């Protein structure tokens, strides 16, 4: 197990900066998710941790010791790739035992460790099969066993669930979480799927364009996003972001007027999550452009003076038809206010109702 620290870590490729100076601490035994869209530098960061890429600048520290120059094979890291990267010519048992070949273990001890790791992820019945004879979920488990068999100080997971079907993803999510807790192993997960990140990890690191946008608990990234990017990336269906103008203590977006707890000036963006909007007798008006049933709830898309707005409402009576004119209302306390020029959230301001101008 190890405490990981990244200091001003940078990776430049010819013409591109993949990772642009990031700082991060991962506590011993904790589970951290690197979350971001493709190309945000999360995988590059992972590969630098694994020792496959060497950083252009900055430092990687394991338990306070610099490991930049330590080769991948000496770092004792377990890694599960998106494609699992199992060795096709070896059986599951040989795959799991592969890392032990380089540790000079006695055969009996190695066999014991393989059986132990296989039992941990419940593939002990499949040890004589080759990867091609295993289902996606089984391959995933074998890959996990191979990563764990050497008792690594750090477990890296690169989009481990993205090749599984929805039901299996749910199972593996809780299973990986259970394993991580059980073994107490420091784990870093890379994913573009916010559900994976927020459900599995203790802390979520949202990345964008090679930088860390926010590092917080899953709840904080949702409730208190640090920037417009985090607000837009976390939460499904995504947050409604409406441009507004602030002058003094008044914030105006089209027909909506809000009162700020302290004076704000300039162009701002008001964010309201779809689940915080509700149908009402008066308020912002719009025409129902699309209705998407999502099971327990229904997502409505409204076209109105503020552009397209999405709201999530419970299934039930009084469902408007497509094309109907409706009004929506919200509690201003649920809104988030962002400075448009810096893209950062204005944190010390709360909004209260001022007047909703009826049209």
């Amino acid at each position, binding site marked *: 197990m190890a405490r990981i620290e990244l200091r001003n870590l940078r990776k430049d490729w010819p013409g591109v900066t993949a990772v642009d100076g990031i700082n991060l601490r991962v506590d011993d035994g904790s589970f951290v998710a690197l979350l971001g869209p493709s190309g945000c530098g999360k995988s590059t960061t992972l*590969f630098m941790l*694994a*020792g*496959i890429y060497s950083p252009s600048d900055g430092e990687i520290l394991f338990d306070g010791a610099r490991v930049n120059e330590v*080769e*991948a*094979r000496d*770092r004792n*890291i*377990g*890694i599960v*790739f*998106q*494609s699992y*990267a199992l*060795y*096709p*010519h070896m059986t599951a048992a040989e795959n799991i035992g*592969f*890392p032990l*070949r*380089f*540790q000079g273990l006695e055969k009996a001890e190695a066999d014991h460790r393989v059986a132990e790791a296989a039992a941990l992820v419940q593939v002990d019945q499949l040890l004589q099969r080759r990867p091609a004879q295993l289902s996606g979920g089984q391959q995933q488990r074998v890959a996990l066993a*191979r990563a764990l068999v*050497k008792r690594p100080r750090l477990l890296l997971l690169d989009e481990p669930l993205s090749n599984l079907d929805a039901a299996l993803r749910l199972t593996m999510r809780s299973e990986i979480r259970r394993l991580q807790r059980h073994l107490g192993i420091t784990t870093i997960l890379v994913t573009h799927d916010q559900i994976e990140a927020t459900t599995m990890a203790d802390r979520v690191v949202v990345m964008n364009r090679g930088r860390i946008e926010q590092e917080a608990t899953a709840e904080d990234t949702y409730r208190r996003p640090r920037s417009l990017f985090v607000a837009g990336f976390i939460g499904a269906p995504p947050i409604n972001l409406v441009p507004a103008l602030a002058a003094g203590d008044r914030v105006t977006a089209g027909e909506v007027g809000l009162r700020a707890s302290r004076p704000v000036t300039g162009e701002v963006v008001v964010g309201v999550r779809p689940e915080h909007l509700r149908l009402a007798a008066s308020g912002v008006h719009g025409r129902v452009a699309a209705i998407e049933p999502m099971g327990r709830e229904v997502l409505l898309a409204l076209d109105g003076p503020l552009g397209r707005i999405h709201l999530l409402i419970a299934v039930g009576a009084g469902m408007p038809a497509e094309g109907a004119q409706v009004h929506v209302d919200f509690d201003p306390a649920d809104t988030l206010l962002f400075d448009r020029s810096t893209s950062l959230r204005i944190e010390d301001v709360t909004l209260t109702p001022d007047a909703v101008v009826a049209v």
Partner: protein
Amino acid sequence: MIPAVALKQIEVSGSARPDWAALARRTRVRGMAGQIALAAFLAIVSLPIILPYFWMVVISFTARTGGVSADVLWTACAVIVPAVLLYSLVHLVVFSPGTRLAAGVGLTVVALALLAWLVGSRLHIDNYRFLWRANLVEEIRRKATAGGQFPSVWTAFTNSLALALSQTAVIVTVASLAGYYVSRFAFRGRALFLHGMLVAHAFPAMTLIIPIFLTLYWLHLLDTILGVMLVLTAIELPFYVFVMKGFFDSVPWEIEMSAMTDGATRRQAFVLVVLPQVRVGLIAVAVFAFIRAWEEYIFVRTMLIENKNWVMSLYLYWVADDVMGVDYGIVAAVSIFYVLPSLLLYVFCQKYLTQMTIGGIRG
């Protein structure tokens, strides 16, 4: 949004119910007609290839010194062609594998019996006596001919084997290492290197024959198997490097990364994890390189002179040169002996050879 007006215009055309049974019948008839046409076409185009080989076999087992007659060939054809046609007919009509097999075995037995009865008495293995008698040609011509005494065919066979095996070993080793490097590493001049190899492969090597001859002479490698092997290897290598590059390209990078985080060095990752993935490519390249070396004629003809250095193609050439017009049987028998190793390799490694083109295309 699609305007409602436009939506109205898109309607299922032709409301009449189609005749499904007729459509299904049409597909079946077309399928069968296509199969027959394809089989007929392939049979016809393969005739010019099969017939000469078949004739060669027939000559080698029937001809005697003094001339060759075609009547055994025609008799054999008269038995085999109807048997094959009959079997094709069975295949078209009967679908159970058991019956098909029974028909095949039955027809083979009948054809063999007919052949034994019609031409059996004319078969002999006299033409293969070159396998145990070295100075065969002089026995036939009653004087020493070009090249002086004929070497034993086994000398030529051993030389051919040495040439082909050493060339195969060098090509497999160099092509796999170079292919891996070109596939995985970025280095200055990589594009130029790849283009250069393509050009080198497109360049007709025959035009270099005089400079190569002189170079070998200066290096004292003229008239040695080693010299020819080096020349042929150099000429052939670019192609095989490309083929191997294609195979390595299709091995995912992540497997190697995984091996290295698992504790392997780069070399261990290559040997333990990458090489097994390109096993098919290695076999294909090996077989192809072996066969190419086995059948080589122009360069060995130019650079191997003394008869102790003859390879099989030269042995065949000199046999043909000396006894042609007198004893076709022995030429045919030597040809069969010469073709046999390539043929066996092709038969047993066919599936790898077809994979090679796939690997090549990926590159």
